[in-house]
């Protein structure tokens, strides 16, 4: 019987080390401790059995689970922008997801994507609750000094959509977007919005005469604009934007690794494949 239990322990120890997922390994380690506690009781060591039972099964498992609960994860916060990073039928999809998943695998962390509102982005990254900002991010999108931008993986245009005739009101723009590079736009003319949906609704209702956004968001939002409006609208290109990611300015190591990964992926042509897959 004792030999049988010892062989069970042997099998469990091998099983712990063969696990791919850390959580499974931790739970198996708890079982390992439980079986060893049974052996101690069996061979006349009840003091050791009680102590090993309480520590090995309860405490060690608990602190491992707590330590795992946050670390070993790459926290990505993003706005939902359809071709880039979005959810469909409960499943994450998009070109940025593929890139970030590859990056997370490269640095041995588990990817965790959290969709948040436009306004929460900076506060979350400032409070160290998240590591990477994604979701059609481009330099200048958030006027935040605490951020550092990664290399870009795709280029696109910053565009202005406005009604061709008979419109009044200002030009809509998202809060915190920095337009200092594009001086054509008059600051007094702008009205700020806290989310894309709100801005599109205001445009639909005729409260503003147009809005400025990058073309990725623009094409996503055009689906939500009524058909007559879409026919009446005119799109003007203001400049170029480079889609990339952002990390907190203090996280230099993470930025280095992200840049290394993006360079490598661009060189191997993986990014081009992904872009042609997702943007047809």
């Amino acid at each position, binding site marked *: 019987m004792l030999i049988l239990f010892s062989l069970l322990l042997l099998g469990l120890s091998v099983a712990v080390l063969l696990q791919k997922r850390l959580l499974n390994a931790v739970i198996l380690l708890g079982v390992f401790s439980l079986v060893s506690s049974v052996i101690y009781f069996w061979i006349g*060591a*009840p*003091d050791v*059995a*009680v*102590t090993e039972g*309480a*520590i090995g099964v*309860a*405490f060690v498992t*608990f*602190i491992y*689970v*707590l*330590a795992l*609960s*946050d670390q070993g994860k790459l926290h990505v916060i993003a706005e939902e922008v359809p071709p880039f990073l979005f959810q469909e039928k409960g499943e994450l999809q998009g070109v940025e997801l593929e890139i970030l998943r590859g990056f997370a695998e490269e640095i041995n962390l588990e990817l965790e994507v959290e969709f948040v509102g436009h306004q929460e982005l900076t506060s979350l990254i400032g*409070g*160290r*609750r998240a590591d990477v900002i994604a979701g059609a991010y481009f330099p200048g999108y958030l006027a935040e000094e605490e951020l550092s931008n990664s290399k870009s993986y795709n280029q696109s245009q910053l565009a202005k959509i406005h009604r061709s005739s008979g419109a009044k009101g200002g030009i809509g723009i998202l809060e915190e977007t920095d337009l200092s590079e594009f001086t054509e736009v008059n600051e007094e003319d702008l009205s700020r919005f806290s989310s894309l949906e709100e801005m599109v609704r205001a445009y639909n209702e005729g409260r503003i005469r147009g809005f400025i956004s990058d073309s990725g968001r623009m094409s996503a939002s055009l689906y939500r604009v009524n058909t007559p409006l879409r026919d009446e609208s005119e799109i003007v290109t203001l400049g170029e934007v480079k889609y990339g990611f952002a990390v907190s300015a203090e996280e230099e190591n993470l930025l280095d690794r992200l840049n290394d990964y993006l360079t490598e992926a661009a060189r191997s042509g993986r990014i081009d494949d992904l872009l042609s897959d997702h943007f047809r």
Partner: protein
Amino acid sequence: MEMGKYSVSMKTLYVVVIVVLFGAITIGALFMVGDSEVSRLGAVYLERSQEISNISNAVFSVYGMYRFYDTLFELLIFSTAVLGITIFSDLEPSIDSGSRKPVESHVVSASASFLYPIIAVFGIYLAFSAHLGPGGGFAGGVIGGTGILLLALAKGAEETARNFREDSMKQLEYLVLFLALSVAILGALYPIKVYRDALGTGVITLVNISIAMKVFIGTWAILHFFVKHRGEV
């Protein structure tokens, strides 16, 4: 590619060396040692605990009486580990308490308030009766800590931390350490027989309670740190 080959061969080298080493130890354990029996010292301790009327647990008589210095210094090692954790706990910023709430579950919280006193009493019982039956200071302290674990899971770490205040815990820790050290020094000054006759079972209980409190406070500090920095489960 060269590097890859190199690291693979190093890996096999490691595996071979370790397997050979431990294989040798295993064979030694199997064939060099004859049939085992109770070691000479162990037999002595068993005999002595038969003589002493108020200690019936021979394991306790080893770690609580005859080898109390071993236990004392191992407690000091444990305290050092806990001290390292508390120092880092002060250095590291903790996540804000409002952002994460414990999972509300009526079954868990109701059963916790029902079970916690039972667990606490069981831990105290083990700590007090170490010289009579299985258990002892270590098991008692750890089981008390398990009660805290249950409370932290059910009611949230914040409330649990409020119930067991940090500053009073720290003072209690020093008091307990002082108690253990004074017991040890008294034991060094007087022959164990005199000492036992003077205090009776009281000194045994003193030893036990100091071990149990030390372990309890240590596990509480570790749990508190991990819950504070990793949020609720």
